[in-house]
């Protein structure tokens, strides 16, 4: 019994390590997408849950802002440009001694002017003579920044970076690219299972072989066909119907195979009985097979939908990079190139692209797993 407990504690610990290692990257991304972009750029996401101390440099306003009160000239303003939730506790006026003074104390600049900085960033800069310089002076502050989260990055990414449109485009690609193969493959799989015709076995073997053919084998010829077709009829070579059919082609073998596997398991007597009753194959298909296949359809729908939603290669080759056509993954890759250092854009963009798959994952996990287990071989 004692030995068992040690094993069990060890198992729990080991599993916990795995879980933390697996969740940490995604969790970090999610937290980062909710952080203020200035804070995100200078501190790790794991520091965002505690109050952190940051050292920052601000600049006061220049002579434009001065006012004269009595014998003195004043510049009164706030160091923070926007209203930041930070609390200053020390400040300094030289880079050698950046936290020389407590808030509320008065510091002396080299030129004899005096400055007082308050907790919330308000400062009063006082001088006997008129301020001459346009540029303000540097002030070093040590501030406490309590945990704070914001949705600003999401607003920015969806509206200004064009991810909102890309999100809609991805839907416009993924829905038909999932439904069309589901429709034509269910008829195909029905014929392969329940109809007798010459060449059926060869067709089935072709499907099995097509399951593993890499889609790279199709890219160049299909792109050539699309370009020729576009030039011949004077239409765009890259279009939504074009990519729907490409995805239908690449998903055809796996969709047919999974459905065929499922239809095989339906009782033969039922089909025979329907035939005796005078039902045509079309009646049998609509009235008997489709209702029975709903769970299988659900699994295949999820698998294909996620595959199309997450695809990058097909989207890059068969769709324009124009904002009205670009899909999320391609947009995200574009941002990785152009905004590589703007982590607030990248983390938020990545999370936007993951929202739909994660929703499907958490709400329909059962069907997703069933589909994967049934056969996740995909060309």
């Amino acid at each position, binding site marked *: 019994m004692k030995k068992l407990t040690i094993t*069990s504690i060890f198992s*729990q610990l080991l*599993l916990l390590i*795995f*879980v933390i290692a*697996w969740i940490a*990257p*995604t969790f*970090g991304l999610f937290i980062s997408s909710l952080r203020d972009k200035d804070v*995100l*750029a200078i*501190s*790790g996401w*794991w520091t965002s849950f505690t109050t952190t101390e940051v050292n920052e440099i601000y600049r006061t306003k220049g002579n434009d802002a001065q006012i004269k009160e009595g014998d003195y000239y004043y510049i009164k303003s706030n160091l923070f440009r926007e209203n930041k939730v930070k609390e200053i506790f020390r400040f300094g006026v030289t880079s050698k001694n950046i936290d020389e003074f407590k808030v509320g104390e008065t510091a002396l600049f080299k030129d004899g002017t005096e400055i007082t900085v308050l907790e919330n960033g308000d400062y009063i800069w006082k001088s006997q003579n008129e301020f001459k310089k346009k540029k303000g002076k540097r002030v070093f502050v040590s501030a406490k920044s309590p945990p704070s989260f914001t949705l600003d990055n999401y607003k920015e990414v969806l509206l200004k970076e064009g991810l909102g449109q890309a999100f*809609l*485009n991805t*839907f*416009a690609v993924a*829905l*038909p690219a999932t439904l*069309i193969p589901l429709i*034509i*493959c269910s*008829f*195909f799989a029905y014929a392969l299972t329940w*109809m007798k*015709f010459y060449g059926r076995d060869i067709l089935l*073997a072709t499907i*099995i072989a097509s*399951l*593993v*053919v*890499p889609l*790279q*084998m*199709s890219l*160049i*010829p*299909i792109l050539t066909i699309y370009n020729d077709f576009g030039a011949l009829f004077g239409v765009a070579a890259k279009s*939504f119907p074009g990519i729907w059919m490409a995805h239908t*082609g690449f998903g055809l073998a796996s969709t047919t195979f999974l459905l065929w596997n499922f239809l095989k398991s339906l009782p033969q007597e039922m089909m025979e009985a329907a035939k005796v009753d005078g039902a*045509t194959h*079309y009646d049998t298909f609509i009235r008997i097979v489709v209702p029975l296949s709903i769970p299988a359809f659900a699994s295949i729908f999820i698998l294909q939908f996620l595959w199309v939603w*997450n695809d*990058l*290669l097909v989207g890059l080759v068969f769709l324009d990079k124009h904002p009205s056509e670009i899909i*999320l*993954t391609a947009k*995200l890759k574009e941002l*990785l190139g152009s905004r590589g250092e703007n982590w607030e854009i*990248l*983390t938020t*963009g*990545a999370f936007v692209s993951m929202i739909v798959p*994660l929703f499907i994952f958490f709400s329909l*996990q059962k069907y997703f797993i069933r589909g*994967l*287990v049934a056969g*996740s071989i*995909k060309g």
Partner: protein
Amino acid sequence: MSIFSLALTVLVGVLFFVAFFHFSNFLLDYFRVKSSKKFDLENSLRVVIFIGPAFIVLFVFIIYPVFETIRLSFYDKLGENFVGLYNYAWAIKDPDFKRSIINNLGWLIVVPTLSTFFGLVIANLADRVWWGSIAKSIIFMPMAISFVGAGVIWKFMYDYRGPGDQQIGLLNAIAVTLGFEPQAWLTIPIWNNFFLMAIMIWIQTGLALVIFSAALRTIPKETLDAARIDGASELKIFWKIIIPYLEQTILVIWTIITLLVLKVFDIIYAMTNGQWQTEVLANLMYDWMFRGGGDKGRGSVLAFCILIGVIPILAWNLYKHRQDQKV
């Protein structure tokens, strides 16, 4: 495009196929009533309607392209003049090609092995603890997200700031805490390949995990209990009973991940685009499809190389299918 015109396009696209099947079958039924003798013709026509669209798609998008790509690999840049083995000779001499083959082999060895191993270990651990299903969900989650999304997640993990600056990438933060110098992980040749593979392992372990979880439940409990009573350690049970029992499952998972790894593109394209010696075949092929207006010959050779990688699996699948059909 606005949301309405997008929705309309989608609706028209999908309804087109529904309408095709509905009206063609409706017409067939209509004429059958009129001429009840031609039963054979009716059946043949029905077969044509049922398999027609799928067969056309299969032919245009898979069968024809496979032969066309092989043909193009013997033709020049524009696919117009026959050049014999010229493109293959080019590939053998090309340093990027050599690099890609070496890297692809590395991916093929490391990723399926580690994903399968982690999946198996985690499936076993998760079976023993009460919060096992939550753990499984978490580890399985990366399966749902895109490779590009995963790329961003991990690029953030690998982020590099100069020594002395605050590290915002988790990996460098850990390295600095442990007293090492921060590293720009993705630019260190050879090693950076392993950092890219880690992403794929992170994703595919979930797949291995769920399939193993399902398979583990089929191991008879009596066998395991008998071994425990005989005093076998858990580790010994794992190696001597569980692994041999799951041999078939291990093979299936290995195959699936191998197929995926052969075509690995998104991760490389998004993270390094083949720089710092991380090139792989699929990325090199994409590059040649568009570099300098595109080179069909070279692109086709590279695609064909990926196909050669899957041929053993293809042959094995067909062999198994024939065995199944005989039973």
